[in-house]
């Protein structure tokens, strides 16, 4: 029987339909729908709320708006880069037998771009800040928001096109060296600019100011200029989409040597550890470090938040919010499905005597370790260039927020790992520990949890009582500890453990 070339649109629709059908729980579907509609709702309500704020500051806000747009551009490049091109509807091996076109792959990753809490929150921030900078709500706000939507589209498509290009370049050893050298070059340039005070000059010259200007033109009924700018952004989106498809096709066509790097090269034998738990932790550490997406995720978490915090010269009041966001990111790396580290090996591990108890502790420890390291790196980076703290309470509040956020993320992640396990190999560069919709819900849940913690400790720091944040952390950390014990009891039940093992091993 002959087959015909199927257009990407025709391939994407059934893939998406199957993915949605696979969300069996009605509650989960409802939660997913709410999570996807939330940004639109927040924009709608937020526009009217910011309209109530006195507009004396609107000019100053307008001056800072291009920087917020620039931050969004950085996010749209970094997020798909960190995910090896972007998240996919299905792990590649599940579609290996089908003639999936690069256009479908690229469109799929674009479709999943909004299933990312940072992307959602930034889009809401762009709409609200632009609306505030423009003036009172009216039809002009709608035109201005159209400009924001066009900017979001061009930035997101462009970011993904760049990410796929980098994926292609990184298929070879030389390419990887080149990207590392480019990253180091960018890093050094930024350090130079910050060190010699060129930051504001650079930000003032940001081309993203044209996006704001276009939005203001729409608001102020300068129709010809507004329409021209809008058309430029729409055409730019189309051109970048074409380039993105070409980059995806090139990246997928390149043979690459990842298999040589990650599968064939022998690794050095490590020395035996005196305790059994240490042995299991060592296996988990190796599983994290030898996994392409996890290794890259850990490196990004260790470097990026700290570097951004250092560049921004954040105050200690703002630093209090940082540990929560970083801890949530660390939990999302693999923590929400920690037993997938063993993947198909779980079935064999489950037959080893004395494995179950230490295995739970080892997994919790692995998640804790990544959380603590990432948070420590971020806070250390921020503290490097932060002005001197106003009081000791600023420092203790940051430390307490870090401990609390890590404890809550670990407890929440381990609970999710035991209650809702998924089969995930975390082998390919775009693999995630759970399907995209589930990851969106996890990220929403962890972000709400950790942002609340950050805001709470930030508020307590204003009271300038150094011991108060530490005392406040005690009930939260204790609650997290109790939650972990409860989850560990659940794990000790043979039928619960059997479900986790069978699910993550795919057996």
């Amino acid at each position, binding site marked *: 029987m002959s087959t015909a070339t199927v257009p990407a649109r025709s391939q994407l629709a059934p893939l998406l339909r199957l993915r949605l059908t696979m969300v069996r729980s009605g509650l989960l579907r409802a939660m997913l729908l709410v999570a996807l509609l939330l940004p639109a709702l927040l924009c709608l309500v937020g526009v009217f709320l910011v309209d109530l704020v006195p507009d004396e500051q609107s000019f100053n806000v307008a001056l800072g708006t291009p920087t917020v747009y620039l931050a969004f551009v950085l996010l749209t490049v970094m997020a798909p880069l960190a995910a090896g091109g972007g998240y996919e509807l299905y792990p590649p091996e599940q579609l290996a037998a089908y003639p999936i076109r690069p256009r479908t792959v690229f469109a799929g990753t674009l479709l999943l771009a909004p299933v990312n809490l940072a992307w959602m929150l930034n889009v809401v921030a762009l709409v609200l800040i632009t609306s505030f900078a423009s003036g009172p709500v009216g039809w002009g706000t709608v035109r201005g928001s159209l400009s924001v939507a066009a900017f979001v589209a061009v930035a997101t498509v462009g970011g993904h096109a760049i990410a796929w290009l980098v994926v292609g370049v990184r298929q070879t050893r030389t390419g990887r060296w080149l990207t590392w050298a480019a990253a180091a070059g960018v890093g050094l340039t930024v350090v130079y600019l910050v060190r010699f005070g060129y930051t504001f000059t650079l930000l003032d010259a940001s081309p993203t100011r044209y996006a704001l200007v276009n939005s203001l033109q729409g608001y102020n009924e300068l129709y010809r200029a507004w329409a021209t700018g809008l058309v430029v952004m729409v055409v730019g989106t189309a051109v970048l989409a074409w380039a993105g498809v070409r980059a995806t096709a090139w990246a997928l066509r390149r043979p690459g040597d990842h298999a040589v790097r990650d599968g064939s090269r022998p690794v050095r034998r490590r020395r035996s550890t005196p305790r059994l738990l240490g042995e299991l932790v060592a296996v988990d550490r190796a599983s994290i470090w*030898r996994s392409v997406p996890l290794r890259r995720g850990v490196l990004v978490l260790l470097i990026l938040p700290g570097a951004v915090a250092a560049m921004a010269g954040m105050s200690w009041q703002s630093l209090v919010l940082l540990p929560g966001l970083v801890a949530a990111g660390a939990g999302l790396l693999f923590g929400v499905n920690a037993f997938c580290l063993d993947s198909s090996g779980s079935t064999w591990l489950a037959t080893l005597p*004395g494995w179950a108890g230490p295995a739970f502790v080892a997994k919790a420890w692995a998640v804790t370790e990544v959380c603590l390291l990432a948070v420590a790196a971020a806070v250390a980076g921020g503290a490097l260039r932060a002005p001197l703290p106003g009081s000791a309470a600023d420092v203790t509040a940051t430390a307490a927020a870090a401990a609390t956020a890590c404890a809550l993320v670990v407890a929440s992640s381990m609970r999710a790992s035991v209650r809702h396990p998924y089969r995930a190999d975390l082998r390919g560069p775009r693999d995630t520990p759970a399907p995209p919709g589930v990851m969106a819900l996890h990220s929403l849940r962890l972000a709400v949890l950790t942002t609340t913690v950050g805001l709470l400790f930030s508020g307590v720091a204003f009271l300038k009582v150094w011991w108060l944040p530490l005392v406040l952390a005690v009930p939260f950390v204790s609650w997290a500890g109790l939650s972990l014990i409860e989850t560990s009891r659940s794990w000790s039940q043979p039928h619960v453990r059997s479900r986790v093992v069978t699910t993550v091993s795919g057996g």
Partner: protein
Amino acid sequence: MSAVVEARGLTVSFGPVLAVAGFDLSVPAGATVALVGRNGAGKSTTLKVLAGVLPPTSGFVAVGGVDVSRHPERARGRTGYCPDVGGLIPRATPWEHLHLAARLRGMGPDWPDRATELLDRFDLLGEADRVTAGFSHGMGRRMSVLLAAFHEPEVLLLDEPFDGVDPLGVDATLQVIQEARLRGAAVLVSTHLLDLAVQACQEAVVLRRGQVVAAAPAAELAGDAGAERYRTLLS
């Protein structure tokens, strides 16, 4: 002779699906039994229960005289299990698997000698320090059989050990089964490859829809006549 593996009224259900429908099984020391049957007959589920991976819904199951439901840890100490799919930690090396198994099973200081000998026998010595994610299917199967036999268990449970394995790997697996039988272990092999089941085992148990439909000397399923009889039992 007392049974090393004993199942009475073993039932396993997954929601409305009855995977194992209350059968009895008894395997004495030094016996090799092939579990054969169609897909979904309950072979792998039975082995998972015996290995302590899956708790039975009802019934009594004991290995080496230990009730698997009441003392799963002690029972696991007596078994060696090769699962039907995977069975290897993707980013750990064979040597790391063996190291962990030796620690958890409390093996003596000479475990590296045994590990090296088995790796050599299964032609995996050169791959001992490569992560198993890079292994072919057949290499993964060989490694899983090796891990099951590593600690010389009282009960050896092999689920599809010959699947995708080359002739030398098949020979090594047959040798492991023979050695286990000679030292008095009970061996259960689940496979779709009837010829190898006959070659490896003395007895054969045919399962259909979670129930035992026949139990006979494996030799009776040999040759064309045996294959024809087997087909009749499956339908």
